[in-house]
């Protein structure tokens, strides 16, 4: 592989990396992808999937969300945490050095950005449309194209039929259909990158509630599936496993990537960085010395547990999935992009122990009470626009690499906005037959990723990037992950990151 003469080196095998690489290799460009990990091991039997083959997930509750405590989450984000020298304050660093990146544990919720979401971007929603279509077709998205949320989520690409709805979610949706919805509120089926019809190597969802521990059927999209697709282009695509990029150097002929293994550096005229927002920051920071404090955007997120009284005493569903069942949107103000959005999740696919630990009862009672209530419970997540976040990143260069200090925070007006949104939503849920339980909580910034804004496209500063993600201070180096999003709306960002990477990939395929 060492004689592979790459035109473009792509760093990272996550959704952004594969999305940028695909148009390049399809156009016949020679792409070398380097990945810190390799193809990983099988998921193992039932208890190994939940507790870990070495029981690494059998640990006392540390307050982390159940999603991040699974063995699959540890495999996905553990190495990234260990690699960095980041200091975090009111912030949880989430990144990945695993094959497929964070897409291994993502919520699979997809939505397109519209022009309001993209205000301040150096491109329009129409320019992203062909890429949205390509990505949606490639990853397989199920949902509805004729409910109140269909326009909000976008209409690029064909949709697969939605999976059967959890009875509790169905009950809420039934109430919504029968009533005049409150102004500014809309509810509909969630739109997930979940296959309901098998295709290629992937099977349709078997409704076995296994989502949280890694989908065994490959029904949920993750970037490893596109690695398989890339590998079919044998003459134009090469992948280097277990190769961690540690230093980027500009040369007369392009770029040189030094790797952790200390082997010969890799060279190519162009570099595409897709290491994930915080991973890219680690790589780019040494190139931008001195770097002023940067603003890191994230969507603040709140979870609201809801109880649907008329479902009390029902049998829990025998089948289902743990991704979002329904999606909603609530407009906060007339300002552009000032809305919240989120999903409703069935609790049947979640581990009762993490809920029982928070109930004010003894363990035995808490477990029984939670499990008896579970068929009537649902959890709503509420994402706020990134302009309410006020995270600050400062970087100190050191011999052993950049030391990154992230301080999480929100704007002054956010607590009030969050409270008013919670009150409004409480009323809305009640009208839909779902009662908000105490215990609504805001997650620590960074827990849920949804990051962006570090190297914004269109910003004139040295750390800004062109409309094709090319770093102003480093020609030939393109960033294609979340770090280049000029804004982070309340919507789920992954699909847009992929579409943007695809757009940049297409541009490079024509230009390289």
């Amino acid at each position, binding site marked *: 592989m060492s004689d592979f003469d790459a035109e473009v080196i792509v760093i990272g095998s996550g959704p952004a990396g594969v999305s940028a690489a695909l148009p390049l290799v399809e156009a016949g460009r020679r792409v070398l992808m380097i990945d810190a990990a390799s193809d990983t091991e099988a998921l193992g039997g*039932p*208890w190994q999937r*939940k*507790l870990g083959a070495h*029981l690494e*997930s*059998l*640990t*006392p*509750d*540390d307050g982390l969300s159940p999603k991040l405590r699974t063995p699959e989450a540890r495999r996905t984000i553990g190495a990234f945490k260990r690699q960095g020298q980041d200091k975090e304050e009111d912030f949880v660093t989430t990144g990945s050095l695993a094959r497929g990146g964070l897409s291994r544990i993502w919520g699979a919720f997809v939505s397109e950005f519209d022009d309001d979401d993209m205000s301040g971007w150096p491109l329009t929603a129409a320019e992203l449309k062909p890429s949205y279509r390509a990505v949606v077709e490639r990853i397989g998205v199920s949902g509805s194209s004729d409910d109140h949320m269909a326009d909000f989520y976008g209409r690029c690409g064909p949709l697969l039929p939605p999976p059967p709805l959890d009875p509790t979610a169905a009950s809420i949706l039934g109430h919504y259909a029968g009533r005049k919805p409150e102004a500014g509120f809309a509810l509909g089926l969630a739109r997930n990158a979940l296959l309901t019809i098998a295709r290629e190597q992937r099977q349709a969802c078997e409704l076995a509630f296994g989502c949280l521990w890694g989908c065994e059927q490959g029904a949920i999209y993750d970037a490893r599936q596109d690695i398989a697709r890339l590998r079919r282009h044998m003459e134009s695509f090469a992948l280097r496993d277990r190769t961690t990029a540690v230093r980027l150097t500009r040369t007369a002929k392009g770029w040189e990537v030094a790797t952790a293994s200390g082997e010969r550096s890799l060279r190519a005229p162009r570099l595409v960085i897709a290491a994930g927002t915080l991973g890219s920051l680690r790589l780019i920071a040494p190139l931008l010395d001195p770097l002023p404090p940067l603003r890191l955007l994230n969507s603040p997120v709140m979870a609201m547990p809801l109880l649907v009284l008329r479902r*009390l*005493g029902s*049998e*829990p569903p025998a089948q289902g999935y743990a991704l979002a069942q329904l999606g909603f949107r609530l407009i906060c103000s007339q300002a552009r992009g000032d809305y919240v959005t989120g999903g409703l999740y069935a609790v049947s696919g979640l*581990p*009762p*122990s993490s809920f*029982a*630990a928070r109930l004010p*009862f*003894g*363990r*035995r*009672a*808490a*477990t*029984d*009470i939670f*499990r*008896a*209530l579970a068929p009537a419970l649902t959890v709503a997540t509420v994402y706020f626009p990134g302009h309410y976040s006020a995270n600050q990143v400062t970087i100190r260069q050191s011999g052993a690499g950049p030391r990154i200090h992230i301080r999480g925070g929100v704007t002054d007006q956010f607590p009030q906005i969050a409270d008013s949104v919670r009150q409004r939503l409480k009323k809305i849920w009640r009208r839909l037959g779902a009662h908000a339980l105490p215990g609504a909580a805001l997650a620590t910034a960074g827990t849920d990723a949804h990051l962006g804004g570090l190297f914004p496209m269109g910003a004139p500063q040295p750390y800004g990037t062109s409309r094709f993600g090319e770093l102003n201070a480093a020609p030939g180096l393109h960033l294609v992950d979340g770090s280049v999003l000029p804004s982070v709306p309340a919507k789920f960002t992954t699909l847009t990151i992929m579409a943007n990477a695809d757009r940049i990939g297409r541009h490079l395929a024509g230009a390289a």
Partner: protein
Amino acid sequence: MAPRLVLTGASGYIGSRLIARAQQRGCEVVALGSAGATGEFAPALSAVPWRLGETPTITALVGATAVLHLAHDWGSDRRDGTGPGNANLVGTEVLARTAREAGVPRFVFASTTSARPQALNAYGRIKHATEERLRALAGGEDHILCARVGLVYGGPERGQYRLLARLASLPLLPMIGIDREVQPIHLDEVCDGLLTLALDPPAARRTVVLAGSHPLSFGAWLRMLRRSRHGRHLALLPMPTGLALAACRLSSVIPFVPTIERERVLGLAGTAPMDSAADLAALGLVLRDPARALTNCRPARRRLIAECAALLRYAAGAPVRSPGAIIRLARIVRHDPAFRHALPWPTVRWPALLRFIEPVRPAMHHGLARRLHLAAMVAETLEPPLRQPRLGTIVAQVALEALALPFRLLLSGLGA
């Protein structure tokens, strides 16, 4: 060619383990001793008949890399005292001299941290006197090495470890010398240290201390033994040495009462710590935490399994028939530093009682809250899955919670 080690005291607590460790390292071991005693412990061993005080056949020693002298004749201490006729004193010198004549490059003598001229017990005085003789014999050379071994624990329950383990199984123990400092070291660490001395000794160290580098009081050690093995507190009743010696005398006079050896009592009363950190570092030994290492014994393991079965039964609300699930829970519970307290035995027998000692505010630093959380996580992986509770369960559980609350306020310390 595999290095050959000649060993005395092969049937003892340290000797028998040393053989196994030496063979693991690829050494050939020749045991000097009575054939019956050596043969039963290590079948792959070649044994040469010999008694302490006799001159061994020189052919048994020729070609050996080292002689490891661990044997001690307690009978001679009793009969001959510390006089020049003591078999240990004479025998060790004869053995060392013969080894020298046979061209064995090293002679390692197992001494004790109580080896001092004014030691209370004869053992300490004789070991000291023997060290002196060996030193004189060596002249200025490095071929004779003395290892002063501390309080050895771990492995099969034999020797002094067995005695102390037995004592620690009592809830209340009258004991002498509980403020004296001891230096516990694991049996395997002693064996590894001795083997390093025999095979590849550090330069310019003729006497090394093989003992824990952090001395702790004898009372604290006994409590640690009981805490680790039985998960319970040990109450110690300090006892003056004079009274203990009187009891010894009495025990030897009164028929049908087992005789308590005066020598043992004096051995417990008369220890003083020696600095060992530099020696351990020179030998490349990093000692394990004794509190952790002690939990790897049969009573501790049995207790752990019983506790985990109870926790899992309580968390699952039904009997758990999966040994795998219990073992998985035990693997984690055992290594969690927060779990130093055993569950009260009634809750192990009737797990439903755990409801009455759970902490009121479930905090993950509380030992029982942590254990129950882990048990609940394991319970979620059971096959078939747990039965769905009916809605009426909520009423029953809330009523039971109300009943249990006053007890929990009072008793939650029991499972901390």
